[in-house]
């Protein structure tokens, strides 16, 4: 442990946020700025017959009105897919649709005006004549013969299929099983709802023909690449993309969105800065949504509880278009996780990516992995029930033993490290699991409806390596960049390709670099989110920032140290191997002679004066690294929950919640615990309340915060959070992802706890969300 890494440190980014000085895109105001608003489809599925924009154009204060055809005529290209699985058919998508609307909220016309109020007034004056068409909304039913087609060139509404695993062994396991558990389940549609709605500001510089785009993105460089190479056509060197402070993402701000194409295009067309800010209503029907799987799954077991096979078939709802990374989520981030924490001989998954008249679906916190853990942990619980085993015992019986890591699953992944018995030992002790069970028995005897849930979940975080991702269909790499610039006075500016939108990189990465260089943390600033200053980087998603972005900074700092050592050796007239880089003291000294030393700042200054450098050594002190990890990291967790259902109302109360996670080494425990707790509460939201609902015509019924029920402060106990630590062996920090584990485990454990409570009532499975109404009906037949 260094001076800072491993310590809970208050966040350096907080002062601006607590004083209302966050630099969010929507706060930006530029001289002469005009305001953009989008006319959107009220229909789930309809043909556009006619568009009349005359009245809108005539409204005083309206600058221009554009249709999808105007954009195409102005050079706008179709929106690409960044993950192309074999034989995928990606339907054509333009930023404004031109022929049909395919989901409620599909953009049809753009208006730019002097104020946002005028722009919205103008939207009401635009007449769009539609011919409503029959819609499809269900991930599986949309493939039925004769179902309406979302895209005429995609028969059966299927965009792609994918499978992985040892099918023959799995089928054999099912055939030879003592017992088979079979389950149909739905992993419902979720709406991410970062608190900051998306926004975009663009400023065209006509004199130099250059564009600056401020956008609420988790990954500004890939957005610049897509804008440049596919959609907007402005050369990358003339295009600057800035994602300043971003108010939460949870995956939904990874993707390339229509408005970040339209806004700069309009800015260039009218030669003025232009701003677009999403309303919450627009966010609910245009931000990519999450989950939405219909799954049929089977688990093969021996009578002693040994799991011998798992076979999973999933229909994954892609929505009306294929979003930027949509095909990655239900394939390489889902089926690859179907071995869970368990040693299973036969594992096989197959899936269909299907089109419906709903908002496009893409990554949402966990992204594929919660879906995998949910079905696995539901199946294991049902197996335990059928075989008369305790849910804890059946899990322990099937764990991959600690001495078998790295462990090769039948579904491609090589798990890096873990000790699942140790993980469960800690959670079981913290929970007093046996005591919980006894208390449950006593409560049941009193007629109360009490349940205990326990789950063990696996996550794959920090997707890697790039070459493998490419072979699976990725159009991008999965490395990260890091640049460390030591100034002549020894102060340090760090540029990371990662992006923080709540995760605290400005603190965590400063801890890492300060320790690596042996400088005070106050001397290190972290810069991110601006393509003009940061080397090309891949951004933040998949819990990759610490393991990939942090490792890139370690590599850069190592290069800085190596150069500093050369300068010190020269100036102290000693061989490098006789020197010691003392990171505690921030100086280089001769081994055994701490007085013969050069402080870091003095060596930095020497690098810049270049008066006395070793022969051939370049002046300056700035190093960049591009770190391409050898593998994902595999965080794992054991969560335990105790719930009680009110018989009179069906309302669930979470009485206790224990979360024990192995996220490898931890850089800042305060921040990691914040990620776990925040993730758990979000995961509980899926289990109990959240549901993106469409009616048969594709109308979004849960389009406000009143109808889409997210967790609020009320109704949660203080979580009991613990950790075990098996460092990842393949990154220099030993860290694993920490951002998504809470969400992955919470959904499964709360569902298992509620189902455990309902066991005596003969209920085997209910679909999420487990609302009071649903549970009341289950209890009262």
């Amino acid at each position: 442990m260094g001076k800072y890494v491993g310590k809970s440190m208050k966040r350096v980014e907080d002062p601006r946020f607590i004083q209302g000085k966050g630099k969010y895109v929507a706060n930006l105001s530029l001289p002469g700025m005009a305001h953009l608003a989008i006319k959107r489809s009220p229909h789930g599925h309809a043909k556009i017959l006619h568009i009349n924009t005359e009245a809108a154009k005539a409204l005083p204060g309206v600058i221009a009105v554009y249709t999808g055809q105007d954009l195409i005529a102005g050079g706008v290209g179709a929106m690409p897919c960044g993950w192309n699985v074999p034989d995928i058919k990606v339907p054509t998508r333009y930023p404004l649709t031109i022929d049909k609307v395919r989901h409620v909220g599909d953009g049809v016309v753009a208006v730019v005006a002097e104020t946002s109020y005028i722009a919205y007034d103008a939207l009401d004056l635009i007449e769009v004549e539609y011919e409503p068409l029959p819609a499809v909304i269900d991930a599986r039913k949309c493939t039925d013969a004769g179902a309406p087609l979302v895209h005429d060139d995609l028969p059966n509404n299927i965009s792609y299929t994918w499978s992985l695993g040892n099918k023959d062994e799995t089928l054999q396991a099912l055939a030879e099983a003592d017992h088979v558990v079979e389950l149909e389940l739905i992993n419902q549609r979720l709406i991410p709802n970062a608190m900051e709605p998306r926004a975009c500001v663009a400023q065209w510089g006509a004199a130099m023909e250059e564009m600056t785009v401020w956008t609420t993105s988790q990954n500004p460089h890939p957005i610049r690449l897509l804008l440049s190479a596919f959609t907007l056509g402005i050369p990358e060197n003339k295009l600057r993309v800035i994602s300043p402070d971003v108010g939460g993402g949870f995956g939904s701000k990874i993707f390339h969105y229509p408005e970040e194409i339209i806004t700069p295009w309009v800015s260039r067309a009218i030669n003025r800065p232009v701003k677009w800010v999403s309303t919450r209503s627009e966010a609910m029907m245009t931000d990519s949504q999450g989950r939405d799987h219909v799954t049929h799954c089977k688990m093969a077991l021996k009578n002693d509880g040994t799991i011998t096979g798992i076979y999973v078939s999933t229909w994954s709802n892609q929505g009306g278009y294929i979003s930027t990374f949509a095909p990655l989520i239900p394939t390489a981030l889902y089926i690859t996780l179907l071995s869970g924490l368990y040693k299973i001989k036969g594992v096989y998954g197959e899936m269909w990516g299907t089109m419906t008249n709903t908002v496009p679906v893409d990554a949402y916190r966990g992204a594929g992995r919660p879906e995998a853990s949910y079905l696995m942990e539901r199946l294991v619980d049902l197996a335990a029930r059928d075989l008369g085993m305790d849910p804890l015992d059946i899990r322990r019986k099937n764990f991959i033993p600690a001495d078998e890591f790295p462990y090769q699953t039948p579904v491609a992944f090589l798990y890096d490290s873990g000790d699942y018995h140790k993980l469960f030992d800690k959670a079981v002790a913290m929970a007093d699991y046996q005591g919980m069970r006894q208390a449950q028995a006593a409560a049941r005897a009193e007629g109360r409806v009490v349940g205990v849930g326990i789950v063990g979940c696996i996550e794959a975080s920090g997707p890697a390596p790039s070459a493998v991702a490419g072979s699976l269909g990725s159009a991008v790499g999965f490395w990260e960049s890091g640049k460390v610039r030591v100034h002549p006075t020894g102060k340090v500016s760090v540029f990371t390709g990662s992006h923080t939108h709540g995760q605290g990189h400005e603190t965590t990465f400063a801890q890492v670099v300060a320790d690596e260089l042996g400088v005070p943390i106050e001397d290190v600033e972290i810069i991110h989110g601006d393509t003009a200053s940061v080397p090309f980087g891949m951004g933040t998603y998949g819990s990759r920032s610490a393991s990939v972005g942090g490792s890139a900074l370690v590599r850069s700092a190592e290069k800085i140290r190596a150069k500093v050592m050369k300068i010190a050796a020269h100036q102290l007239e000693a061989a490098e191997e006789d020197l010691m880089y003392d990171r505690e003291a921030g100086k280089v000294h001769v081994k055994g002679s701490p007085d013969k030393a050069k402080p870091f700042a003095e060596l930095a200054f020497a690098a810049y004066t270049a008066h006395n450098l070793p022969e051939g050594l370049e002046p300056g002190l700035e190093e960049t690294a591009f770190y391409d990890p050898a593998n994902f990291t595999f965080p794992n967790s054991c969560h335990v929950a105790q719930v009680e259902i009110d018989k009179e109302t069906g309302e669930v109360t979470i009485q206790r919640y224990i979360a024990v996670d192995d996220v490898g080494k931890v850089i800042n425990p305060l921040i990691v615990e914040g990620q776990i707790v925040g993730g758990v509460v979000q995961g509980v939201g899926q289990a109990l309340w959240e549901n993106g609902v469409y009616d048969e015509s594709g109308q979004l019924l849960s389009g406000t915060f009143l109808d889409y029920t997210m967790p609020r402060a009320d109704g949660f106990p203080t979580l009991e959070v613990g950790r075990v630590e098996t460092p990842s062996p393949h990154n220099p920090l030993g860290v694993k992802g920490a951002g998504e584990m809470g969400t992955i485990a919470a959904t499964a454990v709360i569902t298992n706890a509620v189902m455990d409570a309902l066991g005596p009532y003969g209920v085997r499975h209910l679909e999420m969300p487990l609302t009071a109404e649903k549970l009341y009906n289950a209890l009262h037949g």
Partner: protein
Amino acid sequence: MTQISVTINGKTYTKDVEPRTLLVHFLRDHLELTGTNIGCDTSQCGACTVHLDGLAVKSCATLTVQADGAAVTTIEGLASNGQLHPMQQAFWDNHGLQCGYCTPGMIMAATKLVEGRPEISDDEIRHGLEGNICRCTGYENIVRSVKAAAAQMGGGV
């Protein structure tokens, strides 16, 4: 256009506004006080909470003309003499924020919630903040922050 006069963070502004102008747009777009964020437009999430004549209100559901003659405090006006308000300090000390977007509204709501209640309980805080949504923190550290600030404020403002 209607002329209004409103005191914001101790400074009085006299301006012509369209009667339909929402207070949050007046603050953000007319005065460039962008610390007050908009999260939902429909008074569900509380990101836009400000103090209006001593009450915590959601400025996305308040017309600017309703603030005519009133005193408004926004997040920018909470610290005094370069000193963070105890609620701001407590959010920092207790990791009560992640992305920071709900934070100004949360802090403005919380300062009113704990007025006169130095020993407010966890349950009272959780219930009192039901009108403010945070998607990042899971609320736990917000509850800690508010409790710490309440004790520090000792019932004051």
